[in-house]
């Protein structure tokens, strides 16, 4: 399978990465090179093979669903590019 420029733009939109026309061209070539490389997987017989979900056989650790941490609003917003009274500030989303 190979991607055309429209697909590159669609994927960039899904990935939330702005791309220029020149970048779309370059990315198309690079993505197709990588997709060409992974194409060889289609020759593997995977009939009846379970997809891997956990690389080490282990049971997922669980804990009680109780509050065990908190009161860290200062820490949480400390690295925010824009914050106001413990809120993250973003451009207006509702008109």
């Amino acid at each position, binding site marked *: *399978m190979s*991607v055309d420029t429209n*697909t*590159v733009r669609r*994927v*960039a939109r*899904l*990935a*939330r*990465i*702005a*791309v220029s026309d020149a970048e779309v061209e370059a*990315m198309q070539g*690079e*993505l197709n*090179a*990588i*997709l060409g*490389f*992974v*194409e*060889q*997987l*289609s020759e*593997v017989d*995977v009939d009846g*093979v*379970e*997809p*891997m*979900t*956990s*690389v*080490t056989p*282990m049971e*997922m*650790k669980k*804990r009680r669903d109780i509050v065990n941490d908190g009161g*860290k609003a200062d*820490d*949480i917003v*400390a*690295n*925010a*590019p*824009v914050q106001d009274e413990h809120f*993250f500030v*973003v*451009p*207006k*989303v509702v008109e």
Partner: protein
Amino acid sequence: MTDLTALTIAEARDRLIAKDVSASELTEAYIKAIDAANETLNTYVAVTPEKARDMAKASDARIAKGEAGALEGIPLGIKDLFATEGVHTQACSHILDKFKPRYESTVTANLWADGAVMLGKLNMDEFAMGSSNETSYYGPVKNPWRRKGSNMDLVPGGSSGGSAAAVAAHLCAGATATDTGGSIRQPAALTGTVGIKPTYGRCSRWGTVAFASSLDQAGPIARDVRDAAIMLKSMASVDPKDTTSVDRTVPDYEASVGRSVKGLRIGVPREYRVDGMPEEIEALWQQGIAWLKDAGAEIVDVSLPHTRYALPAYYIVAPAEASSNLARYDGVRYGLRMPGRDVIDMYEQTRATGFGREVKRRIMIGTYVLSAGYYDAYYLRAQKVRTLIKRDFENVYADGIDALLTPATPSAAFGIADEDMASDPVKMYLNDIFTVTVNMAGLPGIAVPAGLSAEGTPLGLQLIGRPFDEETLFATASVIEKAAGRYTPAKWW
């Protein structure tokens, strides 16, 4: 006076405990060495001399009281991927500009609890995506090794290129690193250092910037096998904060260094003899086989039939997980923000400016293979292939093989800005051809220096172990180390 930076961790430990040298003196020696070398080699992206001096002073106080920890007073470099409280942690990406975490990663917390001293944060490929340390926002690291009679700058490998180069150039006693497809073992091999990626689940991933969560593992890069064993003992732990941290006691890895390999069955997988492999890599491999035979190990020809599919499967699984993990960098909660017309444009401009080319490429591939209509053809198929790759190893181990011996890399260090590598992303990816299988199967792997190329640069061998049997790797690697000797670059910087 001998140069204190020439001491291994084990040697420094003995001299610190004997009060023959103080942690403060040792730390000063490293700060001085970093000051003199960093502008040239670019190994550290942030040096923390004040923090190092404070930590060394506290170590000296504990040593005086007879309360020394396992790494008391040992100055270490930390890969920029590990969260260090209040200190530069940016995964060498522009998008994490000014990020200073308010918490400490479990791995580094374990090291500090054992008395280690932090010298600073080490350069790496951006978000650990790369095999040459050239994707770092902070520029490439120079390998302290040069080819015979040449001044050409070589890459130290990647993504833990800063870690490997700093260890090789004696700018830290040892370094933390991480390995998703070979990022510990490949740079270790290219710099004449020892690097081990432990079994998936052995080191906690908590507080380590995520790349591909089902593949990422932390491990040390050190000057010799013993030092790597000492460091891994401290880095590994059982951590309730990481659901994939495995509930097993951490063994005393150092005790296995020098242990006899007599009677061990070492597999040599025939599929690792790849087309176009340089003759000197084949010769190195044969030399490794001979050394292990001489030490009493039995060499067995084995087959891992799905080996050739590991790298293509990796380039689906790893970007898929990366595209999901890196969705968090949106210019809202931390790091860089670029202005935009609206919130979506702000996200898009931030991510376009903040991510480098290789990272964007992998996010795009990951987004594509997970997108509607392609999931089954790519991601699901790759995860099935991954099951087959793991099964290959299980079959070999079930037949009584204790460990596998392979080359660590398909070549020695190449030049910075190598045109061949830059022209095709897949060429760069092929650097990980011998290491990536190990991540796909979650196994432990160690790279140990075994010789020099015709050009006088280091070459390494890799040993792959059974799950959680790092001890056999340390024992076997120490046989190779003893036979091959240790390699230190001639200082030119």
